[in-house]
């Protein structure tokens, strides 16, 4: 059994986000990059399945040179090998183009049984890429999993998913795409020996010539932003303008009455 985890490198959650000089991206100079926090749950889930079944875990990312660190972190947690799609032609792809490129690479890997991913990328606020990969591969998907049970015998996966107002249990034929909800497990910290070992694990670098663009029905020069359907025009940092009316809490009764009154009469919110 072979599991592939799609991961993303994102700015640290504490990072201050500022627009760059062209206005349609962010300043990256002082940013600390991390493995997307939601992807940690997907990597952990894959490694737990590996521990139970002996599965092989492949970690795939698309991104600049630095993104290899997200793969290395995942390998230090227990992944076996990496695939890093990193040609400049792939910069600024939208989810449509990413779905095609990632889907095409997974097809060429051939024998993937289960594709796992985090529920959302915290940079793009995007949850759609794993689903678009599922569509490209014409395989089923279940999102927001709180439980994943693989049955190798019947080649199925039973997934408990969060739905509006409750949860739903679904059974998917493998291969399938599953995105996992935060809290499905407790992601392990990469140990020092794990980090040392990760440096020696294989990581395939894939350039534009490594993607079979005929198969996905688009010209090689239409991979990347030219094959995208949307583009970011502008990034704006919202300014905080709040009224900052802070009351002294020495007399709790009075302060509470005053706050309730402000919320009713001034903010008109209650």
């Amino acid at each position, binding site marked *: 059994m072979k599991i592939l985890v799609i991961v993303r490198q994102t700015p640290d959650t504490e990072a201050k986000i500022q627009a760059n000089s062209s206005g349609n991206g962010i300043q990256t100079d002082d940013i600390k990059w991390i493995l997307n926090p939601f992807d940690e749950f997907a990597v952990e889930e894959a490694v737990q399945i590996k521990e139970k079944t002996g599965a092989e875990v492949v970690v795939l990312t698309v991104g600049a040179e630095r993104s290899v660190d997200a793969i290395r972190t995942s390998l230090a947690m227990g992944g076996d090998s990496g695939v890093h799609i990193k040609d400049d032609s792939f910069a600024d792809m939208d989810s449509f183009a990413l779905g095609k490129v990632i889907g095409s690479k997974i097809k060429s890997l051939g024998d993937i049984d289960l594709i796992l991913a985090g529920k959302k990328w915290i940079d793009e606020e995007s949850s759609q890429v794993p689903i678009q990969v599922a569509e490209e591969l014409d395989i089923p998907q279940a999102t927001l999993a709180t439980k994943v049970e693989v049955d190798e015998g019947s080649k199925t996966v039973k997934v408990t998913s*969060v739905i509006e107002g409750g949860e739903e249990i679904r059974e998917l034929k493998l291969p399938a795409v599953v995105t996992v909800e*935060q809290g499905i497990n407790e992601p392990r910290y990469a140990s020092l020996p794990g980090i040392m070992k990760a440096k020696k694990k294989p990581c395939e670098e894939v350039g534009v010539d490594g993607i079979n663009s005929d198969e996905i029905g688009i010209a090689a020069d239409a991979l990347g932003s030219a094959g995208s359907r949307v583009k970011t025009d502008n990034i704006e940092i919202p300014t905080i303008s709040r009224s900052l009316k802070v009351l002294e809490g020495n007399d709790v009764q009075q302060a509470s009455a005053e706050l309730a009154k402000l919320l009713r009469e001034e903010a008109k919110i209650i």
Partner: protein
Amino acid sequence: MSEIWVLVDKAQDTVRNVTYEVLSAASKLKEKNGATVCAVYVGDNSGAIEADLGKYGAEKFYKIENPALKDFNPSLYAAALSEVIKKHNPDIVLGGNTLQNQDFLPRVASRTAAGLCLDAIDVDMSSSSTLQVKRYKYSGKSIATISFHDVKPMIATVRLNAFKPTEGSASAEVVSESVDLPSDENYKVIETKIIPKERPELTEADKIVSGGRGMANGENFKVVYDLADSLGAGAGASRAAVDSGWVPYEMQVGQTGKVVSPNLYVAVGISGSVQHYAGMGSSKVIVAINKDPDAPIFQKCDYGICGDLFDVLPALTDEIKKLG
């Protein structure tokens, strides 16, 4: 005549309010491109809802009904909608940013070679033919303006509460579409459990009260719940409270939890980290209750009380109840 489609979201027999919000977004676009606003239902049985849809601006109502669409299945829903999209070539397809739409519209986008933007907070036309949306990136830390290339259809979901429903006077002409769907052996629903919730879902709540590190333990959250219940609010928490194991992760608000934008957000014993603010900074009114006068949250709130939350919360709950 070009068309803007709005996906209908239904709960049992009634149309959910989010549908009317998205019809309102579609009407805004119609002013720019003159397109016909059409409601589109995908499911097993729409019921007689055309009058309601018409009242909120739908001029046409496509019903895509098939018994195979009884249980939600992302592949089949995508197949059904994509087939009808290919037949009628709408310019724009909009839906509420519901879990179901987030689940199957990405498949529709790939099937129809469409652009897709989820969770728009505003929509506009950058020209007569291209859709432009505003949406958050990096949680609440930035707002991106995103343009679609002129490739139809252009697909977007709209954040709940981002638009107010507007009543129109159109009547919706009903068009029934039949679709052939293969049986799907790859995806089976085993069980659907509706879990009754004591309080509103955070992502839909109009008001939220959240507790942070200052709560000190899980039992103390009772004062948060009491205030939330007096307001009819949802109950949330900061990452510090969740990581300490005091409350479940479903309650986490922040960049690595839920991103919310209620009308009222009450932060109790929460210092106001960048991480937390990224998840609730777009709330209309923010109230902070904290005993530390130097807590960053006091620089990011509309109202606040600097005092011990265990004194303030019961008193505030009483005052809210008095107002009725």
